[in-house]
Structures are given as C-alpha cells and as structure tokens.
C-alpha cells in the first residue's frame, strides 16, 4: 500500500522559513522505492528538523521523514564499529553505547540529530581542529538513488557518490544505513579548562598557543562588547576525563546524566531578547566564568541547550537565523573575524550566542563546510527583513577572506555567493546528474542555490 502524505507547514529549527510541503513517513525501504517510482514531483529527506534553514524543506514538493528508520543493525564490541539506519538519533547512540565505554567520534551542539542528517550536512563538533567532521569516521553508507537502486558508497566503492553525499544536503538520494566508528572513553565526563580572554587578540593568542593540547576547544564570545573589549570571550577546552581523574563521589563513571528537562512552553514575546537583555546576559556569563578546571558531564559540555525542549521558541514567532562562517588560515582570519565582530557590535543586532572555533583542514566532501582556519557561529533573532541586507554584507566579508558559510545553518545565501564560496559546485553537479539525472531530489535550498531547477 502506498503511504499517504500529510500537507503541512514545515520549518527548520530556526523557524524560518516556513513552507508548505507534502510530508511522507515511510517505515520500510520497499515503501521508499514505491514512493519514488509512483509519486510525481521532487523529494527531499528530513530527519528530525534540526537543520536551521531550508535544507530539508521542499516548498510545494514532497518531504520524506526518516525518523521511523531508527534501528541499530550491527555493533562490534572489539572495534567500536557501528551500523545503523539513518534515522537513529545521536542521543540514542550515546544512551546505548556510553555505558559500554563508547562515544560519538564527533558530536554537534545538539544530540537531537539523525545519523543521516549528520552525514548529509557533514556535521562537526568542538574537536573540529583535531579530528575533523563526522564523515571522517564513516566507513560506508547505503544510498537509495532516484532509480530505486541501493548503492553502497565508501572511499573505495562509488567514491564520487560518497564525496558528493557527504555534506551534499540530501541531493544525491536517501541515506538508508551507515557504518561508522565510535571511540572508546573511560567516563561520561569531560575535564574542562575555562579561561577568559579580555579581547579578540588575547583569544587568538590563547587559541594558537594551546589548542593542540586539547581534544575539544571552543570559545564563547560576547559579541556586543566593543572597543578594547571587542571579542572578549570565555575559552572552554577539554578532554574525556579518565577514570582516575574523577572525584570519588561519582559511582558510575560511564553513566550519562539523568534527563531532567525543561520545556519552553510558548514563543517568547519579541521584547524578551533585545540589545539590553542580551548585553546583561553576556556580562553575567563573562563575570561568572572565572579561570578554572572543572569536571563536567558530557551532555552539559556538548549539548547545553538540549536540556531545554524547544529552546528555539526563545526567539519568538518570527524565528532566528544562524550564521556560521569559516575563515581560512592563510587569509588572515583574525582580521576577518575582528571585522565581523565590529559589524555585529555596531549593528547592535543582538546575537545571543557567538561561538569561535578553530577548524582543521578541509576534507574531500564536495560541499563540506570546514577548511583549515577559524569559524564563527552566530544566531540572530529575526526581527524584520532588514536583517537580510546585513547578512549579505557579512557574506561579502566572508568571500573577501576566502571563506564560506555553513549550509546546514543557512537560509538565505544567494546563488552567486554560494558558487564563490563552494568552488566545487560544478564537480558536485556532475555527480548529482549521474545518480539523479531528472532532479528527483530537490529542496528549497537546492533551488535557491541553483543546484536544481
């Protein structure tokens, strides 16, 4: 029986844009194949909607929810190699395997993303400078292509499709299963060093001096500070705590923390997040975090916002946009990031969160985001359309420094800027046309970026 769609107004996590799509929720591969062969129109797969913008939206077209494909298929206790369906959440992987001494090789700022989404967006985490992106640990995956064929892709087999699918925002087909490496850990805790930097110069000095000493490294930046304090920040860097580092009070070193959750019940009124409230928050955050070493539970280090359900509602009904840019190492990234902070501080476009990270070298993913250098991530409440011209100014700055913005968080990049940022777009299209000659896989984002008609 052919499954039925639900017509629904859908958005990504940023709640912008909202688009009407026909949403399917198949449960078996056979159903997916029937859908592809019997339904007209284009398709894009959708995990749990944690990409921020329109990556997984398909205005007027079909969206395939993959959340019922959530089974583990194989696990090797010796090697830590895991095979699972693409709808498995990173959260489930932590819950099942952390108590057995295994952890995700790369985890983004939320554990509520699917394995398929992690590959299609080639996500990264706080170990981007050391360990690269999620795809580094992917041995292979199965891809359902437009003609209903299941294609095994790895670095050896169908390598061109592998590298077009990694970071390929769902345009080569539907990722069905994936095999990837988990890492061994001794505890569910992270040994974190907190260190304050008075301004951007000091932050960069500290990054350059000690980044290599830590597996995980990130800096929270007060993006409203200006003048001599421009770029003042709190650096948070750490490693998986070894068993002997833990205080005696921790009886079960591998047990993830209890899931006490708060829920953001309604959309916050728009006046809650304004220049003054955010400045006050940032002031407080900077003051509270003194230089110190602390042992913290993994989830509060990696996924601090996950403890609040629907935290995106904090930004009100209009939603917010995320903007993450990478500035390559050889084009004076400090100057680029300083300029960006100046623009933000001047515009008073209150960004609640700004995060600075160093990035390791680019991989072979044709549309993968990272490149060796520094990345700055912002989320900015969407108050009115005047934000978009400002984002275009940021784009220009990024392009002039040889950098690019992260597609998983984007919702407004123009086609010509995209092509400047991702010079391998033509190579990507060659592979895309090989496996999907009729553009059966297409999204609002791919049409905006000129990757499909």
């Amino acid at each position, binding site marked *: 029986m052919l*499954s*039925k*769609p*639900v017509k629904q107004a859908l958005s990504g996590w940023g709640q912008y844009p909202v688009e009407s799509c026909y949403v399917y*929720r198949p*449960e*078996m591969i056979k159903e997916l194949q029937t859908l592809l062969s019997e339904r007209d129109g284009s398709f894009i797969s959708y995990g749990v909607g944690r990409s921020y913008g329109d990556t997984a939206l398909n205005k007027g077209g079909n969206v395939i929810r993959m959340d*019922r494909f959530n*089974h*583990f*298929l*194989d*696990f090797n206790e010796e090697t830590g190699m895991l095979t699972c*369906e693409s709808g498995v959440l990173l959260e489930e992987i932590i819950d*099942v395997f952390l108590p057995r001494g295994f952890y995700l090789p790369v985890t983004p700022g939320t554990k509520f993303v699917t394995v398929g989404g992690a590959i299609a967006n080639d996500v990264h985490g706080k170990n981007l400078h050391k360990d690269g992106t999620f795809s580094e640990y992917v041995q292979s995956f199965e891809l359902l292509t437009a003609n209903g064929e299941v294609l095994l892709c790895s670095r050896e087999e169908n390598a061109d499709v592998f590298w077009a699918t990694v970071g390929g925002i769902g345009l080569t087909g539907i990722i069905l299963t994936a095999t990837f490496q988990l890492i061994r850990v001794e505890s569910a805790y992270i040994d974190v060093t907190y260190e304050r930097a008075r301004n951007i110069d000091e932050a960069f000095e500290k990054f350059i001096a000690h980044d290599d000493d830590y597996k995980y490294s990130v800096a929270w930046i007060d993006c409203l500070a200006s003048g001599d304090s421009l770029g003042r920040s709190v650096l948070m860097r750490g490693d998986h705590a070894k068993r002997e580092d833990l205080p005696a009070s921790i009886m079960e070193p591998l047990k993830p923390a209890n899931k006490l959750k708060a829920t953001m019940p309604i959309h916050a009124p728009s006046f809650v997040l304004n220049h003054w409230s955010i400045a006050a928050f940032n002031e407080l955050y900077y003051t509270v975090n003194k230089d110190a070493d602390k042992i913290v539970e993994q989830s509060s280090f990696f996924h601090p916002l996950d403890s609040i359900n629907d935290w995106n509602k904090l930004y009100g009904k209009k939603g917010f946009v995320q903007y993450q840019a990478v500035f390559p190492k050889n084009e004076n990234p400090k100057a680029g990031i300083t300029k960006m902070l100046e623009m933000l501080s001047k515009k008073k476009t209150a960004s609640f969160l700004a995060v600075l990270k160093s990035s390791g070298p680019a991989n072979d993913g044709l549309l993968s985001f990272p490149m060796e250098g520094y990345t700055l991530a912002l989320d900015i409440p969407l108050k009115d359309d005047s934000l978009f011209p400002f984002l275009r100014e940021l784009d220009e700055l990024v392009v002039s420094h040889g950098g690019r913005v992260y597609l998983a968080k984007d919702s407004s990049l123009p086609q010509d800027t995209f092509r400047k940022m991702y010079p391998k777009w033509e190579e990507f299209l060659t592979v895309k046309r090989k496996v999907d000659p009729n553009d059966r896989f297409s999204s609002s984002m791919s049409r905006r970026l000129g990757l499909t008609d």
Partner: protein
Amino acid sequence: MAKILILGATSSIAQSTAQKLAENGHDLILTSRNTEDLNTLKRDLSIRHQIDVKLKPFDALDFDHHEAFFSNVVEETGGLDGILLMYGAMADQKVAETDFEASRQMIDVNYTSAVSILNIAANYFEKKRHGIICAVSSVAGDRGRKSNYIYGSTKAGLSTYMEGLRNRLHEKGVQVMTVKPGMVDTKMTYGVVKDSPLLADPDKVGKDIADGIQKKKDVLYTPWFWLIIMLVIKLIPEKLFKRMNL
C-alpha cells in the same frame, strides 16, 4: 526475567512494547508472516539490550498449524512465560459494508485467529499455573459506531473472549490482560487522522503495555484518558447515541 512470545511484532506498537520488555530484561520470541521484515528489529533489540531474540514465522489465518506452531515454540524455548497478540486488520468501513471478503478478513484476523491461538496458549498456561496472556483489542470495540462498527465488532468479540478467559484463568494464577488503545500515531493512522491531541505516540503505548504486564492489570486503556472518554461514551443512552454522528 521471562520468555515472551509476541505475535505480529512488526507494528509500531509491537516494536515499542518489545523495546520496553527487552529493557526490563525479558527474552523475546517475535513472529510475523515474513520473518525477513523482523530481522531488523531482532538486530536492534539484541544490540540495544543484549538479550536473546528468536524469530518465528506465524500465519494468523493458518489455523491448522497453530497447535504445531505453539508446541514448537514451547519446545525450543524450554517453556514460555507469556504470549502477546499484537496483530490486527482494519479495512475501510465503506468497503467492508459492500464487500464481505473485506469484512471476513477482519473477522478472521482479529477474532477467529485469536480464539484459535489463544485457546492453545490458555490450555498451556492453565496447566503450568503461571503466565501472561495479553491481546491488543481497541476502544472501537466498546461501542459500535457507523464509521467503523465492523472493525469494532471484531474487537468487541476479542474483548469479550479475553474477559471470559480472565475469569477462567484467574484462579489458576494466569494474568489475562486486554489492551484497549485509542488512536495511535502509526502507519494505519498517518495521513488519515489529522494532527490530533488524542493521537498517542507508539512509545507511550508500548511503555503502558509493558508496565501493565508488570502491574498485573486486567484491562488497560492507553493512553489512560481513553478510560474516561469511553466511560462517557458508554453512558450515552442508545436513544441518543443512534442519532449521533460519530
């Protein structure tokens, strides 16, 4: 720890129930017409919960082989502690009104086959003086409505059968639990039932069933608020009810 046989293990409710039972450390024997579809679930359960899972082919309508099927499972497991009947068929009411085959399919799957296999299980557990018999019926069996009374009547039959079985086996120390779910967010309802606050997550229903077994419940409405809803619906006088559009 017990060995529990789940008939019709591929449905969303059955999958969630299996997860909860496995989490509680029970070993499972899963059945379906096509065990290939079940293999994914078996692998998932064994990885997540490190338990022993067996797969068995079972055809609800192949009545002649139910006896052999059941004794084979008992033999291979070295003794069974429970049986959960979780399959069901629902045809479109309008189709079933004019096409007897569609009605008969529901009657045979939901009622006749249940009587066939559960009779066998009941005799086994009665002799053992221990065990759990559980079947998923439906709130639709509590009152006939024009929108789905043929399906509802098969579930009413099942509920009454279970009630009698409970009465018979109570003194023998066998738990007989009837599960009455309301609307659940499954393949059956996706795209049919529009986003409703009454639509339950299968994980919630699965947890309720596993808890219900643990707490030795007789009749389980899940989610719980269906108990209240059906109480009210059952109280409406027939004179009024027959005029209603439900």
